[in-house]
């Protein structure tokens, strides 16, 4: 226990400590607690690296949904390090992972190009149940609160009561919504919606699309059509395509990102439901393979439960480094 306390004092916040660490940390605390408990139980002070220890590290990397590629990359690095230095302890390995992930996320563009485009059109896509509608409500609230005029287009004409759900979120966020309960064709609504957005001088147009599994050819074609219709009204739009990923999904997230990118270039990820024990490790594999940055993370069902992603803080929060208040 004494060691545990001493360790905590050594851990300091990253240089660019964001303004909302507590909020962020609270949501992630359960993930982090598991992650850290997992990690801490692996190490004693100056424990020598051996195959048993490596296996335990491997277990906890896999259990964080980091996937085979990233796990093997980290294990390779650990082995390399352990050859340089005979004794390898928890701090060394944590540092190593921080370095790896930090480099990976280093130059990511995290903002949405609002200043350069008026209106800025954001297409929100994802599989069923990822949390698109809830996320749009939160995004609308986030940008509306910072003084932007936000307009939502309800283009999920498929799921029962999807439009009603989005309508309630629009009311909560206090923004306008373009919807048509009778329409069956999403591209039509999108076309009308963008026209409306232009004439009403919206700063930001958020388009909610139906959930679709990425292996359904006809649904992906429909998405392609939506994208083309958007470009017809505003040639360089959508300015941003955000893929919403359920943080509890495993390696399939990578396949989702790959397949959606083929239809409409995905410019950013929003990883939801990270307020549980899921660690969302698959986002690292996506960043590594497809170079898609994570822009926001979802930490609950309230309007404020969406936070801009900060790689350093995320890595720190996962690996421990804040006071544990849970």
């Amino acid at each position, binding site marked *: 226990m004494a060691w545990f306390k001493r360790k905590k004092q050594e851990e300091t916040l990253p240089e660019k400590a964001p303004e909302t660490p507590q909020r962020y940390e609270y949501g992630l605390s359960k993930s982090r607690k598991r992650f850290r408990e997992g990690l801490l139980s692996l190490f004693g002070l100056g424990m020598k690296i051996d195959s048993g220890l490596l296996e335990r590290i491997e277990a906890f990397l896999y259990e964080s949904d980091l996937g085979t590629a990233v796990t093997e990359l980290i294990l390779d690095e650990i082995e390399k390090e352990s050859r340089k230095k005979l004794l390898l302890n928890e701090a060394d390995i944590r540092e190593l992972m921080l370095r790896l992930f930090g480099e990976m996320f280093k130059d990511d563009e995290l903002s949405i190009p609002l200043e350069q485009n008026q209106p800025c059109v954001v297409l929100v896509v994802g599989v069923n149940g990822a949390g698109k509608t809830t996320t749009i409500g939160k995004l609308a609230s986030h940008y509306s609160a910072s003084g932007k005029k936000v307009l939502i287009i309800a283009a999920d004409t498929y799921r029962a009561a999807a439009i009603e759900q989005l309508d309630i979120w629009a009311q909560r966020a206090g923004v306008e919504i373009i919807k048509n309960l009778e329409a069956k064709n999403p591209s039509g609504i999108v076309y009308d919606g963008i026209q409306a957005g232009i004439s009403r001088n919206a700063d930001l147009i958020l388009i909610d699309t139906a959930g679709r599994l990425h292996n359904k050819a006809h649904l992906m074609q429909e998405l392609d059509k939506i994208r083309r219709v958007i470009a017809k009204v505003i040639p360089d739009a959508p300015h941003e395509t955000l893929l919403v990923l359920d943080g*509890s999904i495993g390696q399939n997230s990578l396949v989702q990102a790959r397949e959606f990118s083929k239809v409409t270039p995905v410019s950013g990820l929003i990883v939801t439901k990270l307020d549980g024990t899921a660690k969302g490790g698959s986002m690292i594999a996506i960043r590594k393979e497809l170079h898609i940055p994570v822009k926001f993370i979802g930490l609950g069902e309230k309007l404020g439960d969406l936070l801009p992603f900060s790689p350093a803080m995320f890595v720190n929060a996962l690996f421990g480094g804040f006071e544990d208040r849970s």
Partner: protein
Amino acid sequence: MLEQLRDNLQTIFKNLRGQGKITEQNIALALRDVRRTLLEADVNYGVARSFIDAVKEKALGEKVLLSITPGQQVIKIIHDEMVRLLGDTQVPLKLDGLPPAMIMVVGLQGSGKTTFAAKLAKQLKASGKRPMLVAADIYRPAAIEQLQILGEHSSVPVYREQNRDVLRICRNALAQARNSDVNVLIFDTAGRLHVDDAMMEELSAIHRELKPREVLFVADGMIGQDAVNAAKAFNARLDVTGIVLTKMDGDARGGAALSIRSVTGKPIKYISAGESTEDLEAFHPERFANRILGKGDVVTLVEKAQEAFEEKDAERLEKQLRKNRFDLHDFREQLKMLKKMGPLSSLVDMIPGAAKLKNAQIDETQFQRTAAILDSMTREEKSRPEIINAGRRRRIAAGSGTQVSDVNRLLNQFDQMKKMMKQMNRMKLSKQAMQKMKSMPWN
């Protein structure tokens, strides 16, 4: 579904079979690959490890190594172990006892509870039960409306009320059911995180009071390593009676199925594939294992065909075929029946060896196009395809939103099909005919 897991295992098995002599080292290498494959398929780390340990223990016995087909033996051990992990036998819902039988549907947000509840209600209704859905998700905006709409689609009553007390809603629903002829109650509860104590306590309270016969934990088939934490937590609170895996029409890798069953010891009861209310299948461990191992699942395929094809339709079709009077009307009819069996991609999974047709992209829209072309023909044209001349072809193409070449292709295929049937009638099913079958519209 499960393609990747299946393909990787196939490769490993092929290597094993190819070995004339199998050494302990061969087996160890193959098992290392199996383990990696399982982990890539999101099987929980601990579950994968004990799976491999179990296979290793059985495979390294002298009997296997000295047998005539050691590779085959190892594959069989893996198969058996997988069936054991998946739960050996199919476990049906328990709906007996004093009605109404109560089913609680629980799970994380976005796992597909509402859609599943509606599908289950529809299936129970079709089997002669009188189900009622209870809208017990008062948190997610428009969740109640969603259930209401889905209930209407399948003509199942939905109990709803404006109330912020979920327990009271459930209680009132039960009272109403007792006063009616409803004999199954399905409670669609709100999605919640297993670490949310207050929300979990809400479920416990309902469970304590209503004592439902079934508590079904619904999990997204694509869920990752956290599946085991969530499943364990729900099970600890509610003594789950069964597991439902959803979105299995995606390319989920099946890891969740293997893991959740294993850590909770509770049977998987249903797998759900598709958004239409028909796409719900009872879970059969042996069949599922066969699909993972690329052996196909002919039993389910036949069952689906039996459900979709009315006997009298089949008889009529057979008669037409026998008399060689099969026309485009019958062709249209056939397409309709095939469509009823569910998404083509899920059917292909069940065909043994279909895994090898990996690149045969299944295009459901091709299906729709064929149907549209047929629907743009007049009655007479369908009965006597030979009258379809160039002018009619242009009209049909315009009417169905296709090209004349599409219409031509369809008519050619139909011609071939007829010729083939003639041959079949003469009981001379040649290889050539089988070849032709491959160029049918759904290929």
